């Protein structure tokens, strides 16, 4: 082989020629190929491109199911029928008025408003060849009526889809959430290609939070269609891409306890004058050891299955009406915790050694003067001499007013910070709200001038203080759990993979004081305002609360944990405008505890712990405050 040197101009020229020849070969091959494709077979390709399309037909990937902690189905996937309409059917090619005629006929047949069809067709504009689902969730009768009249209804057909189905209806509706069709914003955002017009997406609750896990991946099959969108003979063999199923998710919810909780809520005795309002509120049961949410319910509720079918006007009116049934009060409702907040204040009192239970008594006359205002204890005649322990059990407000005088807004805020009562718990539900324990700065910003007397209201969990029911139950669990605050969560397992149990950072609390508080809460059950849960079978610790408000009956609150010695569960019941905590919310808590511990109701009325009738006298009237 000849030795070449790289710089001689001749060699450069020679190599340039090699490059040129190589380039020319590539260029000629490509141009030749293009000539064959475009000039020789161009006509055929044009026919193929205009008359025949390989239409990718999605094969839906089945959505995962949602299961309770033992694997019982909470959200299922079932076949469902849709009436579909093809606006480009060949029958409408010549006469487009005929299309309206067919739609009107169909509307009469199914007793629908033809407007809703037009809406569906409008929503699907731009999808040139897909038949449009104009009526989802058709029942058997509707399907058979359409099938019988098929010859008169060109372009109309019936398709089988898989559809989300919630077998227990409104049970845990707020937690499970619901699906809706994707909108244009979703489609714009989506670069994963998971969604097409008409795809369903989790819009609320766990369906939304675990959308990624639950959703399947659509497969594709290829159908050759001609210009009219009808199937034609296959020209190209294209193998389908199989769909992928979404993952099942297992929750911490216990279906039986959930049912019992919802039943107990619905049976809540109204403790007030006149007609009861719409039952609004929430109940939550938490495993204090793990943070597993065993049951969670919000009222009023709704049936998420309405989102799977075409919704009626009445259903839509209810859903978006003034009772706000889709609002998840368990995590989004912010309420004054009333006396259920007193353990926190009591901790502040004992921690600062403001009073010592054994020797420092406060005298409750039923009235407490602060400046020119008189704050009343719920017990108008007064409790007499009270120490912190008794004042908890009897829910004596005067004692707390005294404490608040010393602690002030700053002191109450400081002890709330130690318990982190107003922080979001981080539960895996959308839209969780934070609570509020005001600081002096907050009052400056919102009220301008304010009296130090606001602290007195705060001390009994009223005034500006706000917590969600979830925060109340988490606080209760932290008290039960020696300051170890569980992180409430609903997910137990995705596709057999256990979800991690997390704890929020532990509250650094004085265990000696906490023991006193827990004893006071037990004493509340045996000798105080929460006798409604005084069982022989299991020792319960509880606190009732009644929040006064200007817009109607009092809000009723109830928190508890049990067994008192070795706590397993904590619960909260909160009912808007439903009366006194012990009388209205207490019985709900009682029913839930009985369901959890399998306690049979005693037939003997004597042994029945605090029947509802006995409760109706104002035994627990927490924290009224009057201005004079």
């Amino acid at each position, binding site marked *: 082989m000849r030795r070449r040197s790289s710089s001689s101009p001749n060699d450069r020229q020679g190599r340039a020629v090699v490059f040129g020849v190589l380039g020319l070969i590539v260029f000629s091959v490509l141009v030749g190929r293009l000539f064959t494709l475009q000039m020789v*077979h161009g006509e055929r390709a044009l026919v193929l491109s205009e008359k025949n399309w390989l239409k990718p037909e999605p094969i839906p990937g089945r959505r995962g199911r949602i299961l309770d902690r033992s694997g019982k189905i909470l959200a299922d996937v079932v076949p469902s029928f849709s009436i579909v309409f093809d606006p480009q059917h060949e029958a409408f090619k010549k006469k487009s008025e005929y299309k309206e005629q067919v739609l009107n006929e169909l509307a009469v047949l199914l007793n629908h408003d033809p407007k809703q069809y037009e809406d569906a067709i409008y929503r699907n504009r731009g999808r040139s060849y897909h038949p449009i689902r104009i009526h989802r969730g058709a029942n058997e009768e509707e399907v058979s009526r359409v099938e019988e009249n098929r010859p008169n209804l060109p372009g109309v057909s019936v398709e089988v889809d898989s559809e989300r189905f919630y077998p227990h209806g409104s049970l845990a509706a707020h937690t499970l959430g619901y699906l809706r069709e994707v909108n244009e914003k979703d489609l714009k955002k989506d670069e994963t290609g998971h969604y097409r017009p008409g795809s369903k997406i989790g819009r609320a609750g766990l369906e939304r939070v675990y959308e990624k896990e639950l959703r399947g991946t659509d497969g594709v099959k290829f159908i050759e269609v001609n210009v009219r969108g009808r199937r034609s003979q296959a020209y190209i063999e294209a193998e389908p891409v199989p769909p992928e199923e979404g993952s099942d998710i297992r929750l911490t919810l216990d279906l039986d306890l959930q049912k019992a909780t919802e039943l107990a809520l619905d049976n809540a005795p109204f403790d007030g004058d006149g007609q009861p309002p719409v039952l609004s509120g929430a109940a939550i049961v938490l495993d204090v050891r793990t943070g597993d949410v065993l049951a969670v319910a919000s009222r009023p509720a709704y049936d998420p299955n309405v989102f799977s079918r075409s919704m009626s006007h009445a259903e839509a009116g209810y859903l978006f009406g003034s009772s706000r049934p889709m609002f998840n009060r368990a995590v989004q409702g912010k309420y004054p915790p009333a006396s259920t907040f007193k353990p926190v204040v009591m901790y502040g009192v004992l921690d600062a050694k403001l009073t010592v239970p054994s020797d420092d008594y406060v005298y409750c006359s039923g009235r407490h003067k602060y400046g020119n205002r008189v704050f009343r204890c719920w017990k108008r005649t007064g409790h007499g001499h009270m120490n912190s322990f008794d004042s908890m059990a009897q829910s004596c407000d005067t004692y707390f007013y005294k404490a608040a005088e010393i602690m002030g807004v700053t002191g109450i805020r400081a002890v709330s910070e130690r318990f982190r009562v107003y922080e979001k718990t981080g539960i895996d539900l959308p839209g969780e709200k934070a609570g509020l324990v005001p600081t002096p700065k907050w009052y400056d910003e919102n009220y301008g001038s304010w009296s130090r007397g606001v602290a007195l209201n705060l001390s009994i969990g009223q005034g500006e203080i706000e917590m969600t029911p979830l925060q109340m139950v988490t606080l209760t669990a932290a008290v039960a759990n020696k300051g170890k605050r569980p992180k409430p969560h609903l997910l137990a397992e995705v596709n057999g993979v256990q979800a991690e149990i997390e704890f929020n950072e532990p509250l650094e609390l004085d265990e000696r004081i906490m023991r006193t508080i827990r004893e006071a809460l037990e004493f509340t059950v045996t000798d105080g305002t929460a006798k409604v849960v005084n069982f022989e079978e299991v020792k319960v610790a509880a606190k009732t609360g009644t929040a006064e408000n200007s817009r109607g009956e009092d809000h009723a609150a109830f928190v508890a944990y049990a067994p008192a010695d070795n706590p397993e569960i904590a619960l909260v019941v909160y009912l808007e405008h439903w009366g006194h905590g012990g009388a209205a919310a207490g019985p709900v808590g009682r029913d839930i505890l009985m369901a959890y511990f399998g306690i049979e109701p005693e037939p003997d009325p004597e042994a029945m712990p605090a029947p509802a009738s006995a409760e109706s006298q104002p035994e627990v009237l927490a924290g009224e405050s009057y201005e004079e």
Partner: protein
Amino acid sequence: MSRRFRQFDWILLFSILGLIAAGMTLVYSASQVPAYPWKAGLFTRQTMWLVIGLVALFTAAAVPFRFWEEYSHLIYGVAMVVLASVLVIGVEREGARRWLSFGGFQFQPSELAKLATIMLVARLLSRPRLDITKLSALLPVLFAALVPFVLILLEPDLGTSLSLPAALVGMVFWAGFPGVVILIVATPLLSTLLSFKLWLWVPYLVLLLVFLRMIGVKRLLGGAIAVVNLAAGFAAPVLWGTLHPYQQQRVLTMLNPESDPTNSGYQVIQSKIAIGSGGLAGKGFLEGTQKGLAFLPEQHTDFIFSVLGEEFGFIGCVLVLCLFALLIQRSVRLATKARSRFGAYLVVGIASMIMFHVAVNVSMTVGLAPVTGLPLPFLSYGGTFLLVTLIQSGLLLNVAFRRNEV
């Protein structure tokens, strides 16, 4: 100064500008798809990258190439560190780590790494009295290219990594390495690929023997080459056959994740129909129907040529190919004229790489080559790729502007 302008290669500049214009036109068209609403933002993003790219082009052209030569070591080093970091902190998409993400920006370091490698190799080759046929001269060059090649393969990104050897072969050939040897080294590889089709392999072997006789290789050496080819050709299908189908699929997807997911040539069929339906003059700008209806999600990137074919027809395709041919021809001409050896090697490397990209990408869209995920310079959507293409163009113009400088 005025002499510089008189000697400046305006045709080269014209071809570059023409290709940029064609690219933006096609990306705009490909972004207008009612069935894929998310594509609407693609054009805006590409325009943003074009602005950045033009700034980079002027920078690459304005700074004398002596500077690039001087700092090619450093640039190469930084590029390799960034490239390696992708494997660790890169964003994973469909099983491959190829992108770094800063805020909303996604950046593909492999493209820049290839350019840095070309710079370093150009510098290594332009050392005085270098004899490339000597192993001591060839090994550093090979090593410099091997590092990024392996790193890109690990991502994995076969398509992107393949254009690096193409550039290297071009440069080494320019440095005086005998073309015949390059061919012979490549024969076993070719044999492996062709052995899967007997009707291709047998004529190939015959041609190889004729070729070896023609160039007068010694009998012993020629025999050895033939035996190696034969062995490679026999072994490949046999070894391949012992793998389970799912293993084969896994190897194929690993080597080439862009390969047709349906395994049925669907994308290529659609691309061929789109191009063919354009006929002589095309359906007109924005009038293409296949992009909206067909299942061609990659049309704005790797299959952009099919938009060209459908909307601008045979005439449009040939015009764009002519622009590419012009770009290559002017670059090779520049390489012969440039007084700086570094400049010449740089130009040859860049031109070889662009030529490889064009050949493989267009062959893929017209069904002549397998789907490899190699984008088309100037035309395909993709920020980093456009940026690097424009930097490369800037470097070509740089050498063109200073072709009398050493």
